[in-house]
């Protein structure tokens, strides 16, 4: 940050200081005041992504408000997602890392383990823990996050959108307008779902669409199908002898056979086998009357786009259907992606960094980055929030109709909390839309299956994981596209044998031991 930049921002602070103090509450202001007499600690942040709508961080009022609240002087550098990890590796090699290394893919276990072993990052203990109670609270709120600890210590702030675990990526979407046209209720069982797909096919639909052309193959598309037989489509499940990998459980065989039936009866849009990214565009465009894809806030955005397309389509998400096997549910996954670390090399100030992280993770920090400064970017009267035109000048999105969050809200401590995502999506919408949106959330969450071990890996499992993924991807595609049910069953047995023989048994045994230590 240039000296000129510092002066710019301090000058700005003098003007808006009063507003900021009101916005951030007495506690934060007091913390800032306590540090004012001292030299302001400098906190350097690296975060993946782009500056977005912020033209100059040195003049950004929201960042200035964070500085005021934390008493620090913050230097934020956004680095492209594509080269972010390389930049971190290069920085570590040169012995200079930022104070906050934000949003490292938590799946990069080798890199993270090496950073911990080399002392590049600091644990949230002692003074650091005292400066970041919100991070500790997040771990206490969700026991699954125990899996992220290394040697029993917290090293990362999960970059989250909620504290709990939520539905996965295999939510079944259907066209409600078509259900109404056929005189059908939203399907509650797979039989009813298949009946809808058959009616849709006769009506000219291409079938259900999902994305099975990418590296992940069927991916989350089988979630509800295996869930109907008691197996969450991810992570590890309790077995008689400890813990077992989900994909080789007997219930998965039944789930895949059910999925195969859908394929064999030609209820699947042929494009599904080619789509490498998202089936969303195909679904919104109107020919498939059903889709298996992400849920959450996407549901509202899909409806927005359907309205824009002007074909009268109405989006609906199904609660996980029943197959009569005594179980049903979508997989639950922890509501975060990536972890934010504290630099611990010479020149780093992990306590000051923890203070910044703690503020950004607080209710007031989330509100600041989601809405902006009160009476400047928004006003709140009788619990009603009204966004003001000045938001655009303060770095908030400027696209037409966009009510989104400030770039500081993403890829440092969160991906915008779900409540503020919902606020942005529902802002200006009528009551009917809000009710429908709430109903869709309820549907997705009606039946959920708990999963374990998605965040942790033993050495043997780390080594085997890529082989496992490859075997699962290939094996499942072959099973669901088999000529008949007997062949599909035989292929599943072959897949399990291959998986065990390729090293799965040893890796599974080690993981079972580790998960028994965590969960009993």
């Amino acid at each position, binding site marked *: 940050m240039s000296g000129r930049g510092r002066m710019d921002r301090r000058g700005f602070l003098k003007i808006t200081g009063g507003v900021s103090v009101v916005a951030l509450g007495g506690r934060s202001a007091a913390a800032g005041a306590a540090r004012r007499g001292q030299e302001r600690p400098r906190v350097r942040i690296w975060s*993946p*992504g*782009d*500056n*977005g709508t912020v*033209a100059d961080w040195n003049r950004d009022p929201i960042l200035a408000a964070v500085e005021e609240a934390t008493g620090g002087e913050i230097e934020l*550098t*956004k*680095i*492209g*997602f*594509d*080269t972010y990890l*390389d*930049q971190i*590796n*290069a920085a570590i*090699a*040169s012995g200079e890392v930022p104070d906050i290394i934000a949003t490292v893919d938590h799946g990069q276990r080798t890199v993270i383990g090496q950073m911990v072993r080399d002392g590049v990052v600091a644990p949230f203990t002692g003074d650091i823990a005292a400066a970041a109670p919100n991070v500790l609270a997040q771990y206490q709120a969700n026991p699954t996050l125990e899996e992220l600890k290394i040697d029993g210590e917290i090293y990362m702030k999960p970059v989250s*959108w909620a504290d709990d675990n939520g539905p996965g990526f295999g939510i079944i979407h259907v066209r409600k307008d078509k259900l109404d046209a056929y005189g059908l209720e939203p399907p509650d069982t797979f039989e009813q779902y298949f009946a809808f797909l058959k009616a849709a096919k006769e009506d000219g639909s291409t079938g259900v669409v999902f994305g099975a052309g990418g590296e992940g193959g069927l991916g989350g598309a089988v979630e509800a199908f295996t869930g109907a037989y008691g197996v969450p489509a991810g992570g590890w499940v309790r077995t008689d002898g400890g813990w077992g990998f989900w994909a080789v459980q007997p219930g998965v065989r039944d789930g895949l056979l059910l999925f195969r039936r859908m394929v064999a009866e030609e209820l699947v849009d042929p*494009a599904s086998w080619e789509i490498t990214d*998202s089936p*969303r*565009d*195909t679904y*919104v*465009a*109107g*020919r498939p009357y059903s889709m298996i894809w*992400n849920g*959450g*806030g*996407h549901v509202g*955005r899909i409806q*927005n*786009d*359907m309205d*824009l*397309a*002007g*074909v009268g389509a109405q989006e609906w998400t199904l609660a996980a259907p029943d197959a009569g096997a005594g179980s049903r549910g979508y997989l639950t996954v922890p509501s975060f*992606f990536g972890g934010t670390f504290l630099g611990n090399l010479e020149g780093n100030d992990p306590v000051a960094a923890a203070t910044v992280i703690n503020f950004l993770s607080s209710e007031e920090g989330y509100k600041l980055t989601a809405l902006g400064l009160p009476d400047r970017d928004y006003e709140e009267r009788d619990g009603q929030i009204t966004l003001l035109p000045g938001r655009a000048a303060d770095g908030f*999105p*400027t*696209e037409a*109709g*966009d*009510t*989104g*969050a400030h770039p500081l809200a*993403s*890829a440092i401590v969160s*991906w*915008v909390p779900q409540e503020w*995502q919902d606020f*942005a*999506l529902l802002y200006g919408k009528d009551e009917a839309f809000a009710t429908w949106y709430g109903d869709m959330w309820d549907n997705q969450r009606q039946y959920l299956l708990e999963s374990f071990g998605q965040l942790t890996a033993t050495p043997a499992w780390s080594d085997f994981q890529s082989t496992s993924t490859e075997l699962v991807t290939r094996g499942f595609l072959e099973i669901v596209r088999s000529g008949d049910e007997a062949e599909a069953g035989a292929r599943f047995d072959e897949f399990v044998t291959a998986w065990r023989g390729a090293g799965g048994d040893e890796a599974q045994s080690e993981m079972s031991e580790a998960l028994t230590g965590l969960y009993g």
Partner: protein
Amino acid sequence: MRTELEGPRAESGRARLVWGQRWDAGQAAIGLGLAVVFMAMAYPLFYVLSLSVMPYDEYVRRAIHAWPAGFTLTYYREVLADGRLVRAFEVSILKTVIGTALNVVATTMCAYALSRRELRCGRLLSLLFLVPLFVSGGLIPYYLTIRATGLLNSFWALVIPGLVASFYLFIVRTHFRSYPQEVIEAAVMDGAGQFRIFWQIVWPTSKPMVATIALLYGTGHWNDYYWPSILVQADLHPATVVLQNITTSRSVLQGLGLGTQLTPQSFAAAVAALLIVPVLIVYPFAQRHLVRGILLGSVKG
């Protein structure tokens, strides 16, 4: 098959396809083949341009966007509204012009020296240039070297490290080796030194080769993305880095569910179009040199 096109009969003795002349089956097959090749080459460009001006409502109405529908400059406005882009294109232009000039001078001088059989340890020096064609130092050693030289976060980090590309060096060296030695010997007899021979005789008569490697280096500089994103900070990022970061970030954030619309491919197409256009403008002027230059360097004399 008879062509109906009108036009002057080709006067050149080399021209063989004459308008108004009846095509035989072979010529028709060749014409058809070339047309297919042209379509295969031109369609991706057409597709990108078409997508970049497609309004969002038209985009969401179609599962496949193979053909133009509607017209809007919204995405171009969104991209160009980013204040950093002016600076980024400045950096790109400077990097391309200065970098290419330095590349060409350094590469041709180096290649000329290595082409001289009287150069001591010429083979060993050539070997040193040969090694990087097969083995790369990798990110960390490369980064630490640039850091140790003090180039990190300076404009020169964008041009100095890749000053001489081995592949181009060997193409130029091969060309210089086939250069008529009588001309050089005559210059030596007239008392010219090696610098004078190079600058006043060899360089001016090797323009196709110079233009060729200038074009190749220039395209490389313009498209360079990875190293600029690693070696310099945001204020020195060229347009490729800024535009790629904008596109990827939008895609990642909105894919995660942030923002009210999913970024259509049209935005990325507008970004791609902005990067392609300058190259499209320059390429036709240098194309004839490119073909000649490649041929010159690829045949050992």
